[in-house]
């Protein structure tokens, strides 16, 4: 297998790596190269920071190992190779009445990537992605393929779900799909005036899928205003044609996401929804993966890229922490239009999984000097509130911060160091955040 030497970046395009990547198109190629080289797997590079980067080292791009292996229409159990995207699974199986039980906000994430970050969706009650994984085949540092299940090999299972690739290469996985009555979503959008109302509405919503968009530029009595989007499956509605994808052809200029433009955009976006709220019938993928309609939307942030901050906050402290955060963000004039507040379920499948019962708050910041300071403060508030930040999104955290937020880090370190004693699967993120316990 030839190796390609090139620069590659996380989705936020702030962090990049230069290294050799192999992209096996079949299992035999991967197994042959594994005899010589063990390296971390990477998926579709939809993690924002350095979770999938290995600067100066090697990596295995899994996106071409993307075949369906087996499906049982009676139980909805699907087995597929790890490089298939979650959007492709949804596209193929939704017409047959099934979708992945947990869907992240982008259909471009791979099955392996979804397990490795134990992703969550807009349906917090369903828990995390890993909770619907029945088993996976893991190619380990010792060269052997093991079938890993939550019951027979709980340590390895829990170190792999949310374990950002540190136990080896997930070759394929068996997952439980959720049955769905139609491919059409009935979406209710409601204008929300402030944070207190928002949290109450999220809390009280009975819709299976629920997500909040926040105008992060608003302050004072409008702090935390936005739009609540509640989705449920629509029956007997004619399926609307999904919107076709457009691409951002080049890096946007700097002023594009400057503070006055974002404020203006947010106000217009909010007014899009009538005061009484509105209901729309939408194609499933438009509801679950709205940003996928604009390919390379990360270029809107221009060449310097952007950071995303995402935290989970427990119920008891979330309101106070969010008020402080939103205040700080609105005053900083650094916010972008992409700000999301969701309810978060307690479900988590791994030692380093992000979810916790409470709320999740996420927003983007165009890269710039002031961002690190602001994000540092947001992380501090998160920590004080007993919350944690999401590794899939992180570019700026410190080892101390992560150790304080993730109780099970010591167990994780022990499990992955046992599975990979020579640290063949270490990545830039693992080194930056000392996730293997070796010091800097």
């Amino acid at each position, binding site marked *: 297998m*030839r190796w390609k030497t090139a620069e590659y970046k996380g989705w936020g395009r702030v962090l990049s790596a230069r290294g050799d990547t192999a992209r096996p*198109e*079949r299992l035999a190629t991967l197994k042959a190269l594994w005899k010589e080289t063990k390296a971390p797997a990477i998926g579709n590079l939809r993690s924002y920071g350095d979770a999938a980067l290995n600067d100066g080292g090697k990596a295995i791009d899994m996106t071409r190992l993307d075949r369906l*292996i087996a499906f049982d229409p009676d139980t909805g159990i699907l087995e597929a190779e790890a490089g298939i995207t979650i959007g492709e699974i949804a596209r193929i199986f939704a017409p047959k009445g099934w979708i992945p039980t947990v869907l992240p906000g982008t259909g471009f994430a791979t099955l392996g990537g979804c397990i490795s970050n134990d992703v969550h969706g807009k349906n917090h009650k369903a828990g995390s992605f890993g909770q619907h994984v029945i088993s996976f085949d893991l190619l380990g540092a010792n060269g052997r393929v093991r079938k890993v299940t939550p019951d027979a090999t709980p340590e390895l299972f829990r170190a792999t779900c949310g374990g950002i690739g540190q136990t080896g290469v997930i070759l394929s996985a068996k997952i439980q799909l959720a049955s769905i009555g139609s491919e059409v979503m009935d979406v209710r959008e409601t204008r929300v005036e402030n944070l207190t109302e928002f949290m109450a509405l999220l809390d009280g919503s009975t819709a299976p899928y629920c997500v909040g968009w926040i105008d992060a530029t608003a302050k004072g009595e409008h702090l935390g205003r936005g739009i609540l989007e509640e989705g449920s499956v629509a029956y007997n509605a004619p399926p609307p044609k999904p919107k076709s994808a457009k691409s951002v052809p080049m890096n946007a200029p700097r002023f594009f996401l400057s503070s006055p433009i974002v404020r203006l955009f947010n106000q217009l976006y909010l007014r899009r929804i009538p005061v009484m709220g509105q209901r729309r019938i939408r194609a499933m993928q438009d509801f679950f993966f709205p940003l996928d309609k604009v390919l390379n939307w990360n270029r809107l942030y221009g060449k310097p890229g952007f950071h995303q901050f995402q935290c989970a906050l427990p119920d008891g402290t979330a309101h106070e922490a969010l008020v402080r955060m939103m205040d700080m963000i609105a005053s900083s004039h650094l916010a972008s239009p992409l700000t999301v507040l969701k309810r978060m379920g307690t479900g988590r499948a791994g030692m380093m999984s992000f979810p916790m019962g409470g709320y999740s708050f996420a927003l983007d910041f165009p890269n710039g000097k002031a961002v690190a300071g602001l994000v540092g403060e947001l992380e501090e508030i998160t920590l004080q509130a007993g919350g944690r930040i999401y590794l899939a999104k992180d570019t700026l955290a410190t080892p101390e911060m992560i150790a304080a937020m993730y109780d099970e880090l010591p167990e994780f370190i022990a499990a992955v160091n046992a599975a990979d004693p020579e640290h063949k699967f270490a990545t830039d993120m693992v080194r930056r955040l000392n996730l293997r316990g070796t010091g800097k």
Partner: protein
Amino acid sequence: MKQTWLILGASSAMARGFARRVSETGADVFLAGRDMDDLNRAAADCHLRGAPLAEAMRFDARKPAGFGAIYEKLAAQDGALNVAVFVGSMPDQADIDKDPALVDATIMDSFTGPARFLQGFVPLMEERGCGTVVGIASVAGDRGRIGNYVYGAAKAGFATYLSGLRNRLTRVGGHVVTVKPGFVDTAMTWGLPGMFLVASPDDVARDIQKAVSKKKNTIYTPFFWRYIMLIITHIPEMIFKKMSI
């Protein structure tokens, strides 16, 4: 009418994209090549995507003794028989320069092997008076260049063969599509220096599918390679022979 697609060189990423697309239209697919483990996986994938029947078969372009079994299998299918040839190999020109035996191998994989297979297969299509042959040639076959002229020659030979075959099949209601891809992002080109305007294999597969349904004769994919090659083929030889592109 029921459609069956035989895909030769089915482990190629372009072939995978094409096989998936025809599977979604409900055609039966036979996936032929050398890596049986991979082909069996591909068959399961195609079946789950909609092919009522998806089967892996052994095919080596250098071993015509095995062709008969494939003809027999396909002859037993009802409806229209179609075949798409993705087989080809492109060793480094420097390696060929060192080992002239690679000339034979390259030409056998990319031209004479598939041509010989098709000679035996086409009568089955003629009997039924329908069906399409898709042949993957290459822009490399439009003009010999220092970097890959043996591969280019094989593809040029194959393209000429396909044009003759089109002439023959048209008379009985069949059709032949010659596909000339530019650079495609596959195992063949992964990590090679000097790649530009690289297309995804699935985009190529989509173009091929469109060309089949519209009965195109020769397509370049992506389309702009037609113009790039128009320029390249019009550079006077006096100048071209000194260039290294």
